């Protein structure tokens, strides 16, 4: 055994030496080979009549946009017709307000104290840390809030609250589009891949997303590329049958890339609007599995570019979420984040770091087990809900 230790260490070390060669050398600007930017559906698309500005499909529409016309009911009688996406945001606010008030209240009561002394600031920092925002980000938020309070001489709770709101918003704000690209382009369906570690809710998210799309009158094909976990395909099939979306699946243990390929082929053949590929949960530390994921994406891209790769993150995830996101981003170049299980006591603060480091926006949030508990992520609503003024 001693020898094993010794041997392993030496090898790792030797590797590092060699690895060093390449580390020293300035990295080649090898941006992941992006598929040529596809013209977005707008003009060419068939089903999508939304103007480009609203192109943020269904979800991003929010309450501002008039709900999409209710589509004709799909054929089979037992199929449910999920409600369209508009109006979901209202629920988001309500839920967040319910689950996350603790943070907001705590912060505000602290901020409205007569004197903002050292320990108050530290407590604010602690409160932020408790929401998994991370030590660095929390310190930063507090620092900048502190400076602002000093400069502006703000003392009233309202002012400070406004500053805090702005600060939190600045942390999760991004100029990137938060819309999920699900509209077909040039007659080819949009392809959405759902990835993540085990047990974050990928299959559930896939099912919910399909419902949202069907509710908005799109046609959807689901690809059950989770061929590893027992009964994952059945789980997805159950979701699919509820909304009448066909599920492409194979036996357990089949090559997920082939399932994904078949799903996309079927989507193209049937002329559907969107193909959603659910992948098996995999820990980001498993190289083999991550390679497999890369392969799934590459294989799909033989048919048509993947428009959206959604990383599903669990709101309860702690600092490890950042590492997960980093590795997944490297392998499949994620384009959006879905934050699930936000209906619990967890605050999901990790997204602040993830968004900041990777620049990948949070696009959707999962708010519960109900089939329609998926909503677009709206930073303003998110922050407002955190601060506990959802009803204002």
């Amino acid at each position, binding site marked *: 055994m001693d020898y094993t230790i010794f041997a392993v260490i030496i*090898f790792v*070390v030797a590797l590092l030496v060699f690895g060093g*060669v390449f580390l020293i050398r300035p990295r080649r600007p090898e941006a992941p080979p992006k598929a040529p930017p596809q013209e977005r559906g707008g003009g060419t698309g068939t089903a999508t009549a939304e103007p480009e500005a609203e192109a943020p499909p269904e979800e991003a529409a929010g309450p501002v946009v008039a709900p999409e016309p209710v589509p004709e009911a799909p054929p089979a009688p037992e199929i449910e017709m999920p409600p369209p996406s508009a109006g979901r945001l209202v629920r988001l606010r309500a839920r967040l307000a319910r689950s996350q008030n603790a943070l907001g209240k705590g912060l505000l009561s602290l901020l409205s104290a007569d004197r903002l002394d050292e320990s108050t600031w530290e407590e604010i920092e602690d409160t932020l840390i408790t929401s998994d925002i991370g030590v660095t980000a929390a310190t930063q938020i507090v620092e900048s809030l502190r400076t602002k309070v000093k400069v502006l001489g703000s003392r009233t709770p309202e002012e400070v609250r406004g500053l805090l709101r702005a600060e939190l918003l600045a942390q999760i704000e991004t100029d990137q589009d938060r819309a999920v690209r699900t509209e077909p382009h040039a007659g080819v369906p949009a392809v959405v891949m759902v990835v993540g570690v085990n047990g974050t809710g990928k299959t559930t998210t896939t099912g919910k997303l399909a419902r949202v799309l069907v509710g908005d009158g799109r046609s959807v094909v689901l690809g059950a590329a989770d061929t590893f976990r027992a009964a994952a395909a059945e789980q997805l099939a159950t979701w699919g049958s509820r909304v009448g979306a066909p599920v492409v699946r194979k036996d357990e243990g089949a090559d997920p890339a082939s399932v994904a390929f078949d799903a996309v082929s079927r989507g193209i053949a049937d002329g559907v609007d969107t193909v959603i590929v659910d992948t098996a949960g995999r820990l980001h530390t498993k190289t083999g599995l991550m390679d497999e994921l890369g392969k799934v994406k590459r294989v799909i891209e033989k048919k048509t570019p993947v428009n959206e790769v959604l990383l599903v993150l669990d709101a309860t995830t702690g600092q490890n979420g950042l590492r997960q996101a980093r590795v997944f981003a490297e392998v499949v170049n994620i384009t959006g984040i879905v934050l699930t299980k936000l209906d619990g006591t967890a605050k999901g603060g990790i997204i602040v770091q993830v968004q900041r480091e990777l620049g990948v926006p949070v696009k959707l949030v999962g708010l519960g087990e109900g089939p329609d508990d998926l909503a677009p992520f709206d930073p303003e609503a998110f922050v407002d809900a955190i601060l506990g003024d959802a009803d204002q």
Partner: protein
Amino acid sequence: MFETLSDRLTSVFSSLRGKGRLSEEDINATAREIRLALLEADVALPVVRSFIAQVKERAQGAEVSKALNPAQQVIKIVNEELVEILGGETREIRFAKTPPTVIMLAGLQGAGKTTLAGKLGRWLAAERNTPLLVAADLQRPNAVTQLQVVGERAGVPVFAPEPGNGVGDPVAVARASIEQARRNNHNVVVIDTAGRLGVDSEMMQQAADIRDAVQPDEILFVVDAMIGQDAVNTAQAFLDGVGYDAVALTKLDGDARGGAALSIRHITGRPIMFASTGEKLEDFDLFHPDRMASRILDMGDVLTLIEQAQRTFEEDEVAKMASTLASDDDFTLDDFLQQMAMVRRLGPISNLLGMMPGMGQMRDQIGNVDEKDLDRIAAIIQSMTPEERRTPKIINGSRRLRIANGSGTQVSDVNGLVTRFFEAQKMMRQVKAGGGMPGMPGMPGMPGALPGGRKKGKAQAKKAKKGKQRSGNPLKAKQQEAERAAERQRRREEGGDQQQMPQLPPGLGGGQLPPGLGGNGVPDLSNFKLPRK
């Protein structure tokens, strides 16, 4: 990324060597660092506070031992304290006097209950029990099917009278399962329940009803090692709602540091009984508190690394590696290629490196290691002729060009590889001759300084690496520069008195920690705040 606690503390203590006793200031100075390290590991804030208070009390006035520097000593105390909390009372499953013994699983959605049920079933069966798995998760679509499949794989019967998908009463299922077990002589019943949130009072009530219906002998709270600050809330909610006797930690095969283990143990006092470390049914084990402690402190986990190596490598492979090392022949590029392939099977290189203790300052570089670079190295070597691989000395200019063309790289890459290889070869020779491992160029974290001449190359390599990670912020860059200078200086000084080499990076037990050297990523301390007592 963050440095390991030991590196951070060492940097705090760099000016405090040779004191006779740990003073209060020393301890306070480390408290913030420990706090940060624990928070980064997702230990819940209240737990961090009380833990630090505890550590402080113990560290107060402790004799400074001759063998350890103050930083190491504090870490030793922290580590011991952690192990004590985590492992305080380990226990086995309590079997009921009159079978069946009922074990109920509860936890959040996606924590891994169903998979754990299968693993537990398999483990119990291996211990000569006759378990029965009960599908009482009637909520999630096809959870029942999943349990059936898992049970089949584990070779354990599954009791699933209801199809699930929202149909059926889990309480009734649980109740019926006990009868079923009695009839069929199963001595253990494992009840898989639906995932639920702590705030969902309806579902918690349901769990409590199941509990009341079957009177379980053990309730296991299944929790994901990746969980963050919310661990305390959830653990408390489940304790209040259902109550549990022990905890099973899942997904430990990821790189989450699993501070939740500490939080839950600290808050609820319930022991952690099982650790689930992989996707296969056999990846299930009793919990090892000492390893968890090192993991939380991010001290590197050599034991895990070794275990992983043992699992991955066949014995004859290891023997072959060993013989290559022991033989008098020089280390060749072929050997290297082979070893690289083997090591890569262990997982991403950055992970492996992360498991080595004392690699703190390398974090940035480690983070930058791209697996593709390794592919490129392999490509270069594979573009060489067998002769060249055996004796890389013959690689001249034209051969280099050919190799570069053949592997799709630049001549400079080939050059770099060859030069590096010679260095490594020299090192291997030393290893063979001395039996110890000299420090490595470009590896400041390894304990033990290099014998004289090599130092220069090391400093250069280091400098080159650092050059490109200079911060964009000029102020910060300047500060980093200053730190680096200080670090280089210190390294030179240490070079003299650290000739002898510890056998192995100790990593565990906190006995002898690699001193490491304060790194370039030292957190900005200008705003140094001490945690309140």
